């Protein structure tokens, strides 16, 4: 029997070139792809929203978001993705679909989205300027504070956008469908090029 290797390959594997892009000088925008994560969609069954919330609270120690928000726990981020549904983003196999199935048995339906998205972190002094070219929603700090989330569209492509904890400056996280990822990546580079871009990828959710 032949030897097979099962390398995982991010949908941005080819398009992402680590280093500077666009205008030279201090990069106004940092784009970092976070690779290899678990992402589980949790959708409450009819009449089971409260039960689902309870199960989430028991599992994660925090209430799952009921409005467009992202909630960080010690080892996962719960991101609102629609009415009575949220995404569980985690690393290291702690909250895989197999691990969560018993938690939500009978209360919610789970769908594995771990490979269905690419995750891009956007920060920098000009991050909002670049995002204004991609996103129609208002990202002013008063309107989109830390912990805000949105199920929205960029370039006619559905995305999930949220603002996690600041790291010196605002950090926006973007989940985009994997087959659209390269296209939206190129569009994002185009939008950010004038501000100078620092491109990287990382394994940690940060």
């Amino acid at each position, binding site marked *: 029997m032949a030897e097979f290797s099962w390398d995982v390959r991010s949908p941005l594997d080819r398009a992402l070139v680590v280093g500077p892009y666009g205008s030279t000088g201090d990069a106004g925008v940092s784009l970092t792809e976070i690779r290899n994560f678990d992402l589980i969609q949790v*959708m*409450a*069954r*009819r*009449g*089971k*929203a409260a039960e*689902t919330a309870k199960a989430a609270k028991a599992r994660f120690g925090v209430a799952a978001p009921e*409005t*467009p928000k992202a909630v960080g726990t010690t080892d996962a981020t719960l991101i609102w*993705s*629609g*009415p*009575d*549904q949220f995404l569980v983003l985690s690393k290291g196999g702690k909250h895989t679909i197999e691990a969560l199935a018993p938690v939500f048995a009978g209360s919610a339906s789970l769908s594995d989205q771990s490979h269905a998205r690419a995750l891009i972190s956007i920060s920098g002094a000009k991050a909002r300027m670049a995002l204004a070219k991609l996103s*129609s*929603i208002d990202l002013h700090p008063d309107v989109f504070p830390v912990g805000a989330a*949105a*199920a*929205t*569209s960029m370039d*006619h492509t*559905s995305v999930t956008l949220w603002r996690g904890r600041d790291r010196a400056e605002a950090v926006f996280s973007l989940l985009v469908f994997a087959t659209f990822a390269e296209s939206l990546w190129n569009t994002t580079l185009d939008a950010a090029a004038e501000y100078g871009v620092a491109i990287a990828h990382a394994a940690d959710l940060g």
Partner: protein
Amino acid sequence: MRIVCPFCGERELGEYTYLGDAKPQRPAADAGEDAVYDYVYLRDNIAGVMSEHWYHGGGCRAWLKVTRNTLTHEISAVEPTAGAGAAKVGV
């Protein structure tokens, strides 16, 4: 045009898809051909306030009932449809 999604907040038109009049109810299985014919084909073309189905496909994927004035585009109400989210409906 901008529509205030009851789940997501105010969003631009591009995130939504229009379907049409939200008034007609799908007839029961035994309603007969005439009733289904009416449901499928006989739609009012209202110049004024109308209740419409819109899909927030570029956002939370909820189907919404939007009350809109077709002359001015003024939107006076937006509510979720009965089965949006995990609402328990009927028995």
